[in-house]
């Protein structure tokens, strides 16, 4: 394609100027990549922090509502009332767990009995949220075993695990007996088998772990469980999977995003701000390309005029300038993607004294394909104005100048 040859010659006729132009584009693309990687990194970091110690989906019994019962055509209506004493439970949890195990995106499953209780130590009483699990599933949702700071994670038939802050507040330590009083008014003396510190305040201060077998009589649940907690391979898919599970099981499935709506709003606002910055980066790149090519078209008026005079079509002239824009866009976007990745990769290696990343940046999430496509397309569009102006040049006027 001869227009490409001409475009290439024009760009290389002044290598320093072209290098500056490509560098400008690359700088804008680098800024785009950096902002994208940072925003994505922040979102991933926040999501990981939030979901590391909690379930991605919670399955609970469907909410019961009072309803009129169908009956004989009499003037007396029968009404089913909802018992507030009877604890909602999932009686068929075994088959539900079996169904969940067939789902490919499910990473871990933890059937649980959750309830409220008080831990009584002498005259001190502290409320706790009891999470009763199968001992084998202790680490399914939160990494408890790895965070035991005293004692061990072996629950046994009368064991309880408590968080480090709760232990500090009540002066508890592993091996000590402690009285647990449930919201069903049942007391039982248990032994603190271990103390854990997950660094999640809600867990370390408020949660106590029991085995399901220990919890059944305490919460008067001889068969069922109150909830099934699920971890997914891809947390972002929680809403879709929850919707499917709700349909498949008839249980109420809640995704982690719906339990943390404020976080999602914050992430959305952050992404919106990021898009604004990305748009400004791209716009500045496109203005740069358009102005540089306009200057080039102006500088080459006489050459364009002579080409037009000896019959070169206006489409050919336009193609020369659009191809220049394309070449600048491709070169700048490639260079910008590479330098953006290099910058983000370097920033990701910077570590704070406490071992966390200085910047929660995700180098792999720089939006490379999008920025490459947008920059290239934008560069072509930015070159349309100078291309049109060059193609419309009156040859006579240009030659006479």
């Amino acid at each position, binding site marked *: 394609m*001869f*227009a490409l040859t001409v475009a290439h010659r024009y760009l290389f006729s002044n290598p320093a100027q072209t290098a500056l132009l490509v560098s400008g584009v690359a700088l804008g693309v680098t800024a785009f990549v950096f902002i994208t990687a940072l925003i994505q990194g922040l979102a991933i970091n926040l999501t990981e922090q939030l979901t590391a110690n909690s379930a991605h989906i919670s399955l609970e019994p469907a909410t019961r509502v009072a309803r009129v019962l169908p009956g004989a055509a009499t003037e007396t209506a029968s009404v089913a009332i909802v018992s507030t004493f009877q604890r909602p439970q999932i009686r068929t949890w075994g088959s539900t767990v079996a169904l969940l195990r067939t789902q490919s995106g499910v990473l871990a499953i933890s059937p649980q009995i959750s309830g409220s209780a008080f831990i009584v130590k002498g005259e001190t009483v502290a409320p706790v949220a009891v999470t009763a699990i199968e001992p084998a599933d202790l680490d399914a949702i939160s990494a408890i075993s790895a965070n035991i700071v005293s004692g061990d994670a072996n629950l046994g038939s009368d064991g309880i695990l408590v968080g480090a802050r709760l232990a500090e507040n009540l002066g508890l330590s592993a091996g000590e007996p402690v009285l647990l009083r449930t919201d069903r008014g049942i007391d039982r003396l248990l032994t603190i088998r271990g103390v854990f510190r997950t660094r999640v305040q809600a867990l370390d201060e408020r949660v106590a772990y029991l085995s399901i077998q220990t919890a059944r009589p305490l919460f008067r649940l001889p068969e069922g469980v109150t909830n099934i907690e699920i971890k997914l391979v891809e947390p972002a898919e929680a809403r879709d999977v929850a919707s499917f599970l709700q349909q498949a099981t008839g249980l109420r499935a809640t995704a982690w995003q719906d339990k943390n709506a404020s976080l999602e709003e914050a992430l959305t606002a952050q992404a919106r701000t990021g898009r604004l910055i990305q748009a400004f980066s791209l716009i500045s790149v496109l203005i740069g390309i358009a102005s540089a090519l306009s200057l080039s078209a102006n500088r080459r008026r006489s050459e364009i005029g002579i080409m037009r005079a*000896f*019959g070169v079509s*206006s489409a050919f002239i336009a193609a020369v300038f659009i191809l220049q824009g394309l070449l600048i866009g491709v070169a700048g976007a490639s260079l910008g993607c590479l330098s953006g990745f290099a910058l983000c990769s370097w920033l990701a290696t910077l570590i704070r004294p406490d071992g966390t990343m200085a910047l929660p940046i995700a180098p792999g999430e720089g939006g490379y394909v999008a920025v490459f496509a947008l920059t290239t397309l934008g560069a072509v569009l930015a070159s349309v104005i100078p291309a049109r102006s060059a193609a419309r040049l009156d040859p006579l006027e240009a030659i006479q100048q």
Partner: protein
Amino acid sequence: MSAVLDARAIGMTFRNGDEMTEVLRDVDLVLEPGELAALLGASGSGKSTLLSIVGLLLRPTTGSLEIAGSRVDTLSDAERALFRNQRLGFIFQFHHLLPDFTATENVAFPAAAPAGGMSAAMRSRARELLARVGLADRMDFPATRLSGGQKQRVAIARALMNKPQLILADEPTGSLDRVAAEQVLDLMREVNHEDKATFLICTHDEKVAARCTRRVMLKDGRVEQALQEN
């Protein structure tokens, strides 16, 4: 053999706001194949305007124009561009070579651009033409490294690239020193003589006109004298 150029009652009026300026009035000009015609006239006589009309760079206000038997004043812009490319050759006062290309590439450009690339045949013809204009040793030189006279000779070779039926030259020696101007004039005469190419040379230089086979004098937008055989 039909005329290469048959311009009838050409008129040209320029509008500048409310002011109308009539530059050409009822100009008739016929060039037969192989003529080497000089278009003479004082500054402002309308000779450049007439050359631009004949070169299809400007549309006349009135009149009709035929080149090589084809009516061309009614063509669209795209058709005029194609006609210029295939049938006309241009030589300007300033060479207007493309500085980023070699002498060979400059010569081949009028053929290569519409074809989408420079074929071996185009390159070969361009090099033949350069050899003919005495630049066999400058074929691969960038245009920027050629002297003024050499550039104008490259421009002549470029004008011949597509084997035009009519070559239009606007003050072709105007920017050259005496020696280079002589060489360029000799070259045009040689091409005219050997190829039977028809030339219309716009000039105000009597010495140039004296070496042409015919003189066309324009005065106040009218052809005053259109006959002379050298």
